């Protein structure tokens, strides 16, 4: 029996990705979860495949998670990290693209501050492109790992009620969650300060509710977004005190709800702002499961986009088949 395959060439976002493809990516993710529980966690699947992690924006956990996923699959990994400063020095996207092309990489994992930059990259290189976050657009592997964590906890996504809490307007995590969850048949409500909810968000198929307590009553799970400190510096969020009292996931707030709401957070957390330490470390949180699932689902993505594809009749990417 051959492995199920996905119809994607790149993973640029979850918008437009079919439910079947998402299902396959998640299922393979669970298979890799088992690999990660073994004493020897490495498999030879991507031997001889070269992957570059290209990070134009600060990231610790996403970059490490990708690197770990690549190494667990035995790929050759190259890392390139540059702050936004190197972009402003004039290293244009086009030069980056051409360099990648010239180096004959098999895959590029890219994080970049500009929405659409990974899409542009995919238009000009032969390599498989995986979006590790493009500005405020999408962060598809985060969306997948969040769905995997929900699937793990509830055994289903269809009909699940998920709240997304915080700065929706500036969040790629919110977008990828919305696109993926809606495709999988979940119900999504976004909640946050009114001016951080995009006015047209309803057209993406989600409900909007500004009352966090109503959302907690309704939801099976909530995904709590990180509040960027610069929103406060800009005077857009008046104070930590007000944010915490109106939108923070505090122990007192959770105690008022009988239902055990599952808490997700993409990290890194501002403990004491959008989420209390006790909540983050408590039983309802699956935040560390998310981290492990992140490695597993990224292995799944790399496997499906880079692994052998006999079913499509393409020449195998490996010079010699693994057994």
């Amino acid at each position, binding site marked *: 029996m051959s492995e199920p395959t996905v119809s994607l060439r790149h993973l640029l976002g979850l918008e437009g990705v079919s439910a079947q493809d998402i299902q396959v990516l998640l299922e393979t993710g669970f298979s890799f979860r088992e690999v990660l529980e073994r004493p020897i966690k490495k498999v030879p699947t991507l031997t001889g495949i070269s992957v570059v992690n290209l990070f134009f924006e600060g990231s610790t956990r996403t970059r490490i998670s990708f690197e770990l996923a690549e190494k667990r699959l035995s790929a050759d990994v190259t890392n390139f990290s540059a702050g936004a400063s190197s972009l402003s020095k004039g290293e*244009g996207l086009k030069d980056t693209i051409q360099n990648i092309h010239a180096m004959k990489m098999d895959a590029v994992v890219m994080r970049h*501050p500009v929405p659409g930059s990974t899409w*542009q990259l995919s238009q000009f290189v032969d390599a498989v492109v995986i979006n590790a976050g493009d500005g405020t*657009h999408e962060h598809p592997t985060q969306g997948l790992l969040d769905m995997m964590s929900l699937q793990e906890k509830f055994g289903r996504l269809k009909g699940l009620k998920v709240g997304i809490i915080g700065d929706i307007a500036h969040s790629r995590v919110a977008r990828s969650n919305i696109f993926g969850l809606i495709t999988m048949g979940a119900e999504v409500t976004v909640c946050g300060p009114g001016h951080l909810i995009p006015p*047209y968000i309803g057209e993406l198929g989600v409900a909007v509710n500004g009352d966090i307590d109503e959302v907690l009553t309704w939801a099976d799970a909530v995904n709590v977004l990180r509040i960027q400190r610069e929103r406060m510096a800009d005077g857009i969020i008046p104070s930590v005190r007000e944010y915490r009292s109106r939108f923070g996931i505090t122990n007192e707030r959770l105690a008022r709800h009988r239902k055990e709401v599952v808490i997700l957070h993409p990290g890194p957390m501002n403990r004491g702002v959008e989420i209390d330490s006790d909540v983050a470390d408590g039983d309802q949180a699956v935040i560390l499961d998310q981290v492990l699932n992140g490695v597993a689902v990224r292995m799944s993505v790399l496997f499906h986009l880079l692994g052998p594809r006999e079913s499509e009749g393409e020449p195998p990417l490996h010079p010699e088949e693994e057994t």
Partner: protein
Amino acid sequence: MGTITALPREVLIKGGMLYDPITRESRKGDVAIKNGRLTEPGEIGADKAKVIDARGCIITHGFIDIHAHFREPGREDKETLATGSQAALAGGFTRVCVMPNTDPPIDGPEGVRFILERSEDLPVAIHPVGAVTKGQRGKELAELLEMKAAGAVAFSDDGEPVQDGQMLRRALYYTRDLGVPVINHAEDVRLRAGGVMNEGALSTRLGLPGNPALAEASMIYRDLLLAEDTGSRLHVPHVSTALSVDLVRHFKERGVTITAEASPHHLGLTDEAVRDFDTHAKVAPPLRSEGDRQAVAGGLRDGTLDCIATDHAPHTVEDKEQDLIQAPFGMIGLESAFGMAHTTLGQMGLSTEQVIDLLTSGPARVMGLELTPLEPGETAELVVLAPDEEWTFTREDIHSRSRNTPMLGMTFTGRVRATISRGSWFTCR
């Protein structure tokens, strides 16, 4: 595709329909040109004359573009007065008003004279627009009276909206007796808030900063109130939203002497053109929703909007191959203007003659320019149009120094077959 060469001594345009936008009358008949002037067909030797077969074509007055950026002085790598004129001629235009956001900006009489002297021998007539404020900085009034005397046909800080209402009010009072319009690029830059495309469902999907319709409409509302208050001539450029069209209509009904234009790209494209993060579709004001697009076209149909103007804005390949946040706003538009406008407005029920009015008598009225009568003895300032011809817009059709347009590959109905102006002519293929 086409060539620009010296106009032959004798030209006979045979078998077409002549439409005069001054009288709004059409008649069948041949058009003869001798030494650059219209003459009776009997006056030229049919064997020596260059003959254009114009069966099925309409011959009319050359188009007037009241809103173009020719980048000279300062960014001659994007466009020059000379290359811009070639693009204009290929698009059927015989007169172009050029915006002052050059480097340095045209904000004094020396700049106005520079433009006029540099364009004396060009195939199209160039009319400079002067800046409203020194350096387009919005802080101090520029020498508007001296610029008018030197030949400026209007004033605008184009690209840089005059944010300070008091400054614009003063400029309008100051120019009240000049009879030339002040043009204010209408966008509240604070409400625009870094928007690179229309704010809507698509900008939300793409995670791109959105520029809301009200950033334009609220500024237009302020500007219209100032026009009513001062009684001066205000012209609203590139109206892009349904809200804005309603505001202009409302103030015209109140009897305020305002005029307004629409750009071909706002008639034929929507924000969907940005779907694939195409920097060529990044323009200010942005491509809007389908409802806005129809409202702008409807505004041209019912006379709320007075004319079509291209907002031809050339940028280098290097500028436009940056990412969507960094790439500059603007697209070229002269060569595609008639095809795009005629196709889109034709679908809305406008006749070819109405589209011609919006490209000739409409803009002339806004700027206070006289059209050249289509009569023997007058200078030949003509365009020959094939209204039914279907054609695909390609790179070969571009005569501009730049080629930044999202319209390549689009199919239009209606094509410029030839343009005759100031001793030169453009002929298609």
